Structures are given as structure tokens and as C-alpha cells.
């Protein structure tokens, strides 16, 4: 029996840590239950891309608000999280792609967002001298960039702890029950009670939601990354491609991190994510096509992290549609790292004020009900 909490957060990933931190900043006593260790899953092993570029229209206002937090991340968590505002670039390889990209930039401009900018071949080569000759142009977002995911999640964890949040690691939540205006959470640590429950269980989020009687068709995916031996510096910004899956960046030590949505084998029950060589080969082809210098790189390690993906590839954020005092933030579908600092604030808004000033209608859990 763990006593005296105002809120219990399930999951010690970036979203659980951020929600806990923001609740604590408003004076709440928070308990976080994490089945493994903080940052063990997607939040600790992702590509660290801090990207507004190319977001689903519904996510843009959140991503835009998050970007502002990222640029002053030290004010929030007393650590710069390794954030490098080196920019993000999404490359077009054909004229047809360039036309689609121009339409995209126009479309979000009409919504009032000016961060995405279309550039032509000359400027692309100026920004990325190593890019392959066939690339036609790109959408760029200055001020986007990348951060160190493990360090970021640990910074949120540390700051939350400093504000009194209690974390129990190695503590899996097994069951939830609501009675007399309070949740009783059954875990390896016994029964814990609090009026508020926050589900930040990542790829396991649907299992929690199911306990509240609101099923979500979430699939657990093993997104893969690989890293090379250090190379001489040749690229600053994070690079993606419009027409194929790619996420590409060179880290401070010269190593190149290559990802881009190819999937390995996820076994969420066993906590395992394995790599699939065919998918890695596809990533390697894309990387070598866009940066010919990469042909000489040596891959030294590949890994996968488990992430929850929804059918519409945007997360579930908001109040439970079935249970009182329960809130969700999970299923970030491969791009929730950048959103971490803001979604925690949204959750705290909902818990403490019952509303938030950011648009989250699109993320309602009951969108899957019919």
C-alpha cells in the first residue's frame, strides 16, 4: 500500500515523466509506476528527432508549442538534453514529389503556420553539399533539430523527482479499479490509490485502456535504427525524404544514425524488439542513394524500440470516455519524442483545469469506437 498520491502515472517513458513533472509543478503529489526502468523503451532508444516538419495537420499546433519549449528546454528541466537546433530537411527526388511538397507547404501556410519552407536544388546543395545529384529540392524547417533521447527522458525524470514525484521501477501495473472517487492500482508494489490515473504506457497503452473498457486498435511496432562508425563531418541537419522512409543524422562524435520507419519484430509481452535485415537493407539503400559518401560507412550496431501505432498514426491524448478521473497519452506512432515536453503540460491542464488551450480534439480515444 503506497499512500498519499493525487495522481498515479502508468509508464516511465518521456510522456509519463513529462506528465508527472507538469503535475508536480502544479503542486500535485505524483506516483509513477514503471514496469522496467525509466527510459528503457521507445523514449530512451529513439532517433531523437525534434521535428515539426511533415507532421500530421492535427499535430502541428502541439508540435509548434513543443518547439518553443525545446528552445528553452533547460529552463524546464535544468539540462539542455543535448538539443541541437540544426534544422530538419525533407528531400524531394522527383519533380512530382516537389509539386506535392509545394502543395503541402501552401496548405499549412493557409492554416497559419510558416515554419515549413520550400527550397530548390541550389539552396539544397548549399545546405547539404554531400547530397546526391538527382535531389531536386526540399522542405526545410530551421529551428528543428535533434536531442539525446535517453538524456532527455532522464532529465525529465530527475527534475520530476526533485519536485517530489515518486518513481517505482520494476513495478508493473496489473489491474485498475475505481471506487468512491479514487483509483486503486494493483501492481507489484501492492495497492496504490489516487483520484487521478494517467495512462502513459506507450505500446502497452491499449492494454491499460482496455481495462477501462475502451479498446484501441493499437499495434506494437519495432522501429529500427542503425549507427555507423564515426565519419568526417558531412551533414548538419536531420535529413528525411519525401518519397521514402528515411531519418538521417550525424551525431557530435561523427557517427551517423540511420532510421526511417522500417520495422523489425516486436514482442511487447516479452519486452523484446528484434531487427529485420531486409528492412535495414532498405534503409541502407535510401541512405546511400541520398548521400553517396555513405557507401563507405561501416554499420556497427542496429537496434529496435517498441512503439505503439494507431491506425491513423496520431496518438491518443485526452480524458477517458468511459471512466472518471482517467487520462490517456499514448500511441505516438513513431513521432512522440518531440511532443514529450508539451503533452505532459496538456495532461496537467486536463487534470487540474479540466481543459487545455491546445487543440486535442483529433486525439480523442473514442474516435475508434465505431
Amino acid at each position, binding site marked *: 500500500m503506497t499512500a498519499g498520491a493525487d495522481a498515479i502515472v502508468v509508464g516511465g517513458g518521456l510522456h509519463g515523466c513529462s506528465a508527472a513533472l507538469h503535475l508536480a509543478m502544479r503542486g500535485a503529489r505524483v506516483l509513477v509506476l514503471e514496469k522496467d526502468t525509466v527510459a528503457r523503451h521507445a523514449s530512451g532508444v529513439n532517433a531523437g528527432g525534434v521535428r515539426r516538419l511533415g507532421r500530421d495537420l492535427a499535430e502541428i499546433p502541439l508540435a509548434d508549442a513543443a518547439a518553443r519549449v525545446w528552445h528553452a528546454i533547460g529552463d524546464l528541466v535544468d539540462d539542455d538534453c543535448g538539443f541541437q537546433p540544426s534544422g530538419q530537411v525533407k528531400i524531394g527526388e522527383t519533380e512530382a514529389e516537389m509539386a506535392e511538397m509545394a502543395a503541402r507547404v501552401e496548405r499549412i501556410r493557409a492554416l497559419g503556420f510558416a515554419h515549413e519552407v520550400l527550397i530548390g536544388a541550389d539552396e539544397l546543395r548549399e545546405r547539404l553539399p554531400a547530397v546526391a545529384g538527382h535531389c531536386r529540392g526540399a522542405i526545410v524547417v530551421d529551428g528543428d533539430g535533434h536531442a539525446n533521447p535517453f538524456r532527455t527522458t532522464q532529465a525529465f525524470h530527475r527534475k520530476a523527482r526533485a519536485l517530489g514525484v515518486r518513481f517505482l521501477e520494476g513495478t508493473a501495473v496489473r489491474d485498475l479499479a475505481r471506487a468512491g472517487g479514487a483509483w486503486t492500482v494493483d501492481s507489484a508494489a501492492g495497492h496504490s490509490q489516487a483520484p487521478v490515473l494517467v495512462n502513459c504506457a506507450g505500446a502497452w497503452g491499449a492494454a491499460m485502456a482496455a481495462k477501462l473498457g475502451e479498446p484501441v486498435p493499437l499495434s506494437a511496432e519495432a522501429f529500427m535504427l542503425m549507427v555507423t562508425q564515426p565519419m568526417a563531418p558531412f551533414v548538419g541537419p536531420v535529413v528525411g525524404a519525401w518519397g521514402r522512409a528515411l531519418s538521417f543524422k550525424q551525431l557530435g562524435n561523427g557517427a551517423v544514425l540511420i*532510421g526511417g520507419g522500417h520495422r523489425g519484430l516486436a514482442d511487447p509481452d516479452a519486452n523484446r524488439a528484434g531487427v529485420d535485415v531486409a528492412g535495414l537493407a532498405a534503409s541502407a539503400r535510401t541512405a546511400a542513394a541520398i548521400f553517396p559518401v555513405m557507401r563507405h560507412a561501416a554499420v556497427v550496431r542496429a537496434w529496435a524500440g517498441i512503439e505503439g501505432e494507431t491506425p491513423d498514426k496520431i496518438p491518443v491524448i485526452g480524458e477517458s470516455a468511459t471512466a472518471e478521473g482517467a487520462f490517456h497519452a499514448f500511441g505516438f506512432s513513431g513521432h512522440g519524442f518531440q511532443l514529450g515536453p508539451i503533452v505532459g503540460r496538456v495532461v496537467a491542464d486536463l487534470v487540474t483545469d479540466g481543459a487545455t488551450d491546445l487543440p486535442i480534439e483529433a486525439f480523442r480515444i473514442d474516435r475508434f469506437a465505431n
Partner: protein
Amino acid sequence: MTARPDIAVVGAGPAGMAAAVAAAEAGAHVMVFDEQPGPGGQIYRAIETPGPAGDAVLGADYAAGRGLSRAFRDSGAEYLPGATVWQVSPDREVGVSVDGRARIIKAGAVIVAGGALERPFPIPGWTLPGVMTAGAAQIALKASGLAAADAVFAGTGPLLYLIVDQYLKAGVPVRAVLETTPWSAYLGALPRLPGALLRAGKLRQGLGYIRAIRDAGVPVIRGVSGLAVAGDGRAERVAYTHGGHRHEIAAEHVFVHQGVVPNVNLTRSIGCRHDWDPAQACWRVATDAWGATDVAGIFAAGDGAHVGGAEAARLGGQLAALGALCTIGRIDAAVRNNRGAPIQHALAWELRPRPFLDALYRPAAADRVPAGDDVVVCRCEEVTAGEVRATAALGCLGPNQLKSFCRAGMGPCQGRLCALTVTELLAEATGRPPDAVGDFRRRPPVKPLRLAELAALEPDDTDGGDAGP
């Protein structure tokens, strides 16, 4: 990508060669991969193309490998030299690079016979140029007849004396041998002597090396502790404690060695279960009597599974071949048991002296876990023992968390050179047994793979989906 061997063997040392011979004899289609240019493994390195060193220098044990390598060549097993295996998947797909081309070969069973590695020897100055392992010094001698004169050899284990002996036979002067076997190890080993005496020949061989070294006038200083190498940008001198006093010897080459341990990178990356072996203070893959791991169709044999020396590796290879043949349905269990019984008997006999040798040559705790905080533990990322201890003090319990916190084990060697030190350091710092502390997760590729080769692998229908940059 067309070949589908019944049995794939990784490694053409005594274990891999013997496995291949036994499996091919039974009619199986066998493919053997080894990154070296010729068969032989560590002990019989360059056995088909002996360098200037020759049999007279390398000894009778070395020459004995020629029979096995001939049988291997004649066995009908398909052998690919210069073939680096960078992945084996749990469903027995072998990812291998030959001549700059990567391939995936699916086998009915895989026998991992990748051999051992020298145990890390984390002392002050071990990263200085001029310091290398005695095994690396032996490789230079075997492969190209190259040897550095007036080196100091330091450490413990039977191989150390063998290599010094080989140097002397090659006419290369050796400055001194600093033996780090702690006195307590002699006492610890004593009760295990009777079992070992049954194989007195083996023990006599070891004593023979020591006598030869002494006869050659090389000082052998026993019971040495506190080894440290120092110098300005490279090794210039070795310091050590002996008889309660610090001493120093000038040396530009210092060859260190404290035994060999299984190389678990491949079996770990497959996901096989591993246990801590307290006698040899290392991880070893869990297998049954036929070398079968807990992953179906994946076998392990030789010093990569359990350090027992070349003859034990050869026998273990034969047993794994029988196990694999049975798994793929080439022979039934009765035949396997029948053919295996005499081999198992011989293996038990071969391993008789092991408990004694393990106890005698167990490196001192202080040589496995550096006392000083400035000693580098992870060479790739230059992480010191002090940093590991500080991270443990922050609440980091295991090697994988440690990796994220301070990058230890993140380099291209994937922990091959620091994993044991890290496990034992964390065990000491957190007061938990090594088994509870665990080991680094190893990820494919277990050997660096050129991106162009990976890119050239056949396209497939993997759904790219929405990127998560």
C-alpha cells in the same frame, strides 16, 4: 541467396573443422564460414601456410592441427574463407560478407564455433601504444614471423608460458615474465590436483615451458601484483609490486594476458541464454550435452561455448555435429547417442585437469576489477572505472543502463573488450552477484558491415510506412 545448407558452421578452428567433418561424413550439406584466410582457428592459425616461424617454433601441438585441417579440406564441406559472419538470426539466417558482398544464408541448423577472446586486463596504461595482448603478439609470430625483441610478458594462464616459449624458440629475446597468479590460487587449486594428476602429461607440458623459459635465462617473477605501464605517449616501463616493494623494468613492449574467455557476442545477439561461470569468471552460453542452446537449431561448440582447449573444442565440435544432424532429422536420437557416447567419454577425460587449471589460473580480483578510478575500462569510448562507479552510485544497476548513461560498451567492439570488467565492476559497486547484474545486450551486426553491402541485399516487400525521424 540460393544456397540452403543443412548445417552452417561459424568458425574453422578445431571445433568448427571437427563439426564440419562429422556432419559432412553423415551426408549433410555443410557450409563453413571463417573470416580468416585459411582454416585453423587460433591454435592452428595459418596451419596451411606456416610463416617463417614453422613447426619447430610453434611446437608439436600446433603441427598436430595439420591432420585435422586436411580431413576438413577432404570432407566435402563447403568452406568459405574470408567470410565474416555479422549476424545469425534466431531463425537460423546467417548474414555473411565475402569479398565485399553480403549474403543471407538460411540453414537447417547453425553451429557457432567462433572461439575465445583474451580476457581484458584493465591496468593503468594498458591503452598505451606498445602494450598489447600476448595473443596478439602470438598472431604476429604465427602469421608473419614478426616479433618484438625484449618484451616483458605479464599475467597468468597456460597460454602465457606457451607464447613466451614460442618467442624464445624463434630466437627472440624476452626481458622478463611477470606472473600475476596470486599465491592464494595455488592453495585454492590444490584440492583439485588429484583429478588433474590423471592427466599428468598435460601438466608436465606446462611445467616444461616454465623450465625452458628459466633455462633460457629469462627472469620469471612470481606473485606479482599492482601491474602498471607508464610512458610518455607510449610504453616505456612496467611497474609492479613484488615481496612488498614496488619495482620497475624498462620495456617498450609489454604483452599482457590473463587467460581466455568465450566470445559471446554472436550467441548473445541471437538471444541464447547465458549464465555466469563462477569458476572461469565469465559468461557462457547455456547448452545441453550436444551443444544445443535454448534457441531451436542453434548450437555452440569449442572455446566459444566453454573454454577447454583445442582437444576439447574438437570433441565438442563433433558432439554439436551429432546434435545438429539429429535436429535436422539426418540421424535419429539412438544413432546420435551411440556415436556420441565415446566422444562424450573422451571429452570428460580431456576436461579432467580443468577444475585445477581454472582454480590455479583464475586471475586475481584486483586484475579483473581495477581498484584505481582512472583506469580505462571501455577503450572504444574511453570510460574509466571511476565513471562506472559514479554511475552505479547514481542508481544504475545494469550494463545496459550504464551504456545509456555513460556510453561504456557503445563502441564498435560492442563490449567485447569491456563487458566482463563492467559486469564485475557493477557487481562490486552494487553488492550483487554478476548473474543479477547481467551483461550488455549485443546487437547485430556483431562485426562492422559496410553500408554498401547491406544496401545491396535483395529488396523485399517490407512496408516502409510513416517515418519516425
